[in-house]
């Protein structure tokens, strides 16, 4: 059995962390499922939402619902300000140099597709190379395969080690002047591995490639600084970071965004339209055609406020403490094998159990009110790499507790008895 030796964080100050107060902010956490208190361990799939986010959305609809950037009336002014304020909050949250470098999109998937379409599809030629890793989510594989199909570019894949680490030496060998695009996941959704993205980006830049970092699983769990990482693009989803579904953000460096053509055509993304010639609006508006998802952008901003209020470093320390606890706890269960044993990991406990299929585990845990994800986690290559059909994944967030991990362990032992 592989034993994880997780790196201890620099500071663990979880004493001052009032998890019960945080839990009270999330109304859903007080409900029961099948008569048992809900134990929500599926936040990597989608996180729960605090009341302040729910209120921000309903408040928009109740008190100032109107379209943005279009009308002169009062409500529109309030809505436009709230929408743009949210953009500013998100920019500050990831330390983007300017709010104009943050484009609202439907989610991380759309953000990657936007870059694939508006940048890569135009810039890449036959024989150019795109590098991804073996641990990418399907959303960071398929858009690039589509680019390759159209341009004749070639997809290169950085292997992962038995611990689920990004193979730096192999990456170095794959890099060449042919490399035009590197797109790497910041934190693996299927294994929790935290990738050294700053170094990966730096190496990509050395050969003149553009670097995108998929931050969907990083932003909810740690302080992210896009300027420090140095990436050209950074993508993430609101719904994984206590915000609403249907919203996400693309951060891009201004000179790149300026040079990129719009992704979609329509209202708000134009400056002047005649049948002879249309000129586009400036960045980021030229990428936001049509009436955007105003309510959820405002909710996204409220989510960022909420996380900032708790403090990302404190959240990271709390979740790390839970991860260490959970790893030890599950490690004591006979026949349980952890998938992803990197020393530098976020709160993902992905595992298989001898003789018991994850789907059966999921059904039994559900009866105990415990929500986990079972399956391939949109990472079929990772499953193939470890020669497993699927895993059971318990993923952590700021509102989880040690008691919930205890409940998971008890549930798993019960299932073992049934299949014994």
């Amino acid at each position: 059995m592989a034993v994880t030796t997780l790196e201890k964080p620099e500071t663990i100050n979880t004493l001052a962390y009032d998890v019960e107060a945080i839990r009270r902010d999330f109304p859903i956490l007080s409900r029961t499922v099948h008569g048992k208190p809900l134990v929500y361990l599926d936040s990597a799939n989608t996180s729960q939402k605090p009341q302040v986010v729910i209120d921000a959305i309903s408040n928009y609809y109740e008190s100032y619902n109107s379209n943005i950037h279009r009308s002169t009336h009062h409500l529109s002014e309030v809505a436009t300000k709230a929408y743009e304020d949210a953009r500013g909050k998100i920019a500050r949250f990831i330390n983007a140099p300017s709010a104009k470098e943050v484009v609202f999109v439907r989610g991380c998937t759309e953000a990657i597709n936007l870059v694939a379409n508006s940048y890569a599809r135009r810039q890449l030629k036959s024989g150019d190379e795109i590098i991804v890793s073996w641990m990418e989510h399907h959303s960071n594989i398929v858009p690039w395969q589509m680019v390759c199909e159209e341009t004749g570019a070639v997809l290169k894949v950085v292997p992962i080690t038995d611990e689920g680490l990004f193979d730096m030496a192999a990456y170095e060998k794959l890099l060449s002047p042919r490399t035009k695009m590197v797109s790497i996941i910041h934190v693996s959704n299927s294994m929790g591995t935290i990738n050294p993205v700053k170094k990966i980006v730096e190496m990509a830049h050395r050969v003149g490639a553009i670097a995108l970092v998929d931050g969907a699983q990083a932003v909810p769990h740690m302080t992210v600084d896009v300027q420090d990482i140095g990436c050209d693009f950074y993508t993430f989803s609101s719904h994984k970071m206590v915000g609403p579904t249907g919203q996400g953000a693309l951060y891009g460096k201004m000179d790149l965004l300026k040079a990129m053509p719009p992704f979609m055509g329509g209202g708000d993304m134009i400056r002047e339209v005649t049948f002879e010639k249309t000129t586009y609006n400036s960045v980021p508006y030229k990428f936001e055609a049509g009436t955007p998802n105003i309510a959820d952008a405002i909710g996204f901003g409220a989510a960022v406020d909420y996380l900032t209020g708790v403090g990302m470093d404190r959240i990271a320390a709390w979740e790390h403490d839970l991860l260490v606890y959970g790893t030890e706890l599950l490690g004591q269960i006979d026949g349980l094998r952890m998938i992803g044993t990197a020393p530098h990991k976020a709160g993902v406990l992905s595992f298989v159990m001898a003789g018991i299929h994850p789907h059966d585990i999921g059904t039994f845990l559900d009866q105990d009110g415990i929500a986990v994800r079972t399956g391939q986690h949109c990472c079929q290559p990772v499953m193939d790499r470890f020669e497993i059909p699927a895993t059971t994944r318990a993923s952590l967030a700021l509102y989880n507790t040690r008691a919930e991990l205890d409940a998971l362990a008890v549930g798993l032992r019960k299932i073992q008895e049934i299949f014994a």
Partner: protein
Amino acid sequence: MSDLRELYQEVIVDHSKNPRNFRKLEEADRTAVGHNPLCGDKLAVYLDVEDGIVKDATFQGAGCAISTASASMMTEAVKGKTIEEAEQMFTQFQEMVTTPSDEEPDTEGLGKLLVFAGVREYPARVKCASLAWHTVHAALKGEVEVSTE
């Protein structure tokens, strides 16, 4: 909601751990592969049909307890049956696992397969139980691939 133990009764756990007819059938004249993209379950069903009668039925594949047990018991159930009888069982099995709890499906003739009746209480798992049956149905019709999606 009934107790989950009623679904995972001994016979299902036993068939999942020791699946019967779990091998490739060299003399098979009809074969189909079933796929459940939701959980990654994939199984192959092999049939040897002579004079309209299923002489032998086997399967191979990896899946959860429900899908493995269902495949194992399916192979036992269809062996010796005519194509029509096997098709009839497919239809009845489908009805049994998809009929709402407050209605009584016609299960006469399903015999041991009645242990899967409880799966209708767990909508996320219905496809696990029916994958083997969809696959044998496809094989009987001469199709080679089937997906539960």
